[in-house]
């Protein structure tokens, strides 16, 4: 992976570090159902737009914003209204 700008989307796995600040599991390997088109896919395959301050995860199929994460000096804003549900498998050992 290489550095990215705000306008060039990356795969969802690029947001793994940021998401790990909030979640106790690796969200990028969870599967998510998009609220917009009901497609189910791995978070790692969503499109990530963002930088240091936050990230926008859009559905790779219909472009719906599934996860919006903003990191402010005081804390986090997390908006997941575009993500209908997640399926999380326990980590393989």
């Amino acid at each position, binding site marked *: *992976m*290489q*550095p*990215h*700008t705000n*306008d*060039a*989307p*990356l*795969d*969802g*796995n*690029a947001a*793994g*570090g*940021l998401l*790990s*600040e909030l979640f*106790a*599991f*690796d969200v*990028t*390997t969870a599967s998510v159902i998009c609220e917009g088109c009901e497609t189910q896919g*791995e978070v*790692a*395959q969503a499109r990530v737009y963002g*930088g*240091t301050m936050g990230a926008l995860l859009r559905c790779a199929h219909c472009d719906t914003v599934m996860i919006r994460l903003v990191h402010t000096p005081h804390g986090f804003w997390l908006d997941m209204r575009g993500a209908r549900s997640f399926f999380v498998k*326990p*980590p393989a*050992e």
Partner: protein
Amino acid sequence: MIRNGSDSAVPRRLQWQTAEVSGLIDETPRVRSLVLTLPDWPGHKPGQHVDIRLTGEDGYRAQRSYSIASAPESENVMLTVERIEDGEVSPYLSIDVRKGDKFELRGPIGGHFVWTSALQGPLFLIAGGSGVAPLMAMLRHRAAAKNKAPATLLYSSRAFEDIIYRTELERLAAMGDGLKIVHTLTRQQPAGWAGGARRIDRAMLESEGFPPAARPRIFICGPTRLVESASQIMLDLGHEANLIKTERFGPTGG
């Protein structure tokens, strides 16, 4: 329950730690590898990445993600950085950085774009430019693990001098352990060049890759355009979507 490179059952949250640059390798005129010493590294899986955070004297922070290019078996962690003109972070990491420099790093990150020798079946790696870095971690791991399953790296560079890890790739291919390396040069080819001389396309993916019936695991990393076209072609050729993993990076920025 964050997954990390170790197989520890104890959950471990990602923490920022201080990385020290213990070595620098000029790979090409525009690409440099950084060998890092990390005080608290839990190990990683090939394909994972790290976040790097640089803080300026004025407190301004810039953060970027870089793939790990070294094998888990390696003592140190290696990152490979391409210089992006006008970038915020890559000019420092690719030009100004000195041995002994320190910066913040967290990782390893990501459980999706990951291959380990324990996975069965052939391995088909497709790289564009510095997108070869996480795939190199896989090939280094494959060699260290003495994995003999067939593997192919199809690697697109602009010109001969832009091929990253060129001599090491030659050495790996010469081991006779089932690894094939196919280069294609998109802009300029040296006299007598026997490799490909165009962008990665359907004919190349079909002839150099494995048939869908062999169920190869496919990893594609490079600029968005390459990743999108190659993954679509692999689907069209009949490969299963869940065997195709992609990782794209923007062609600008940094």
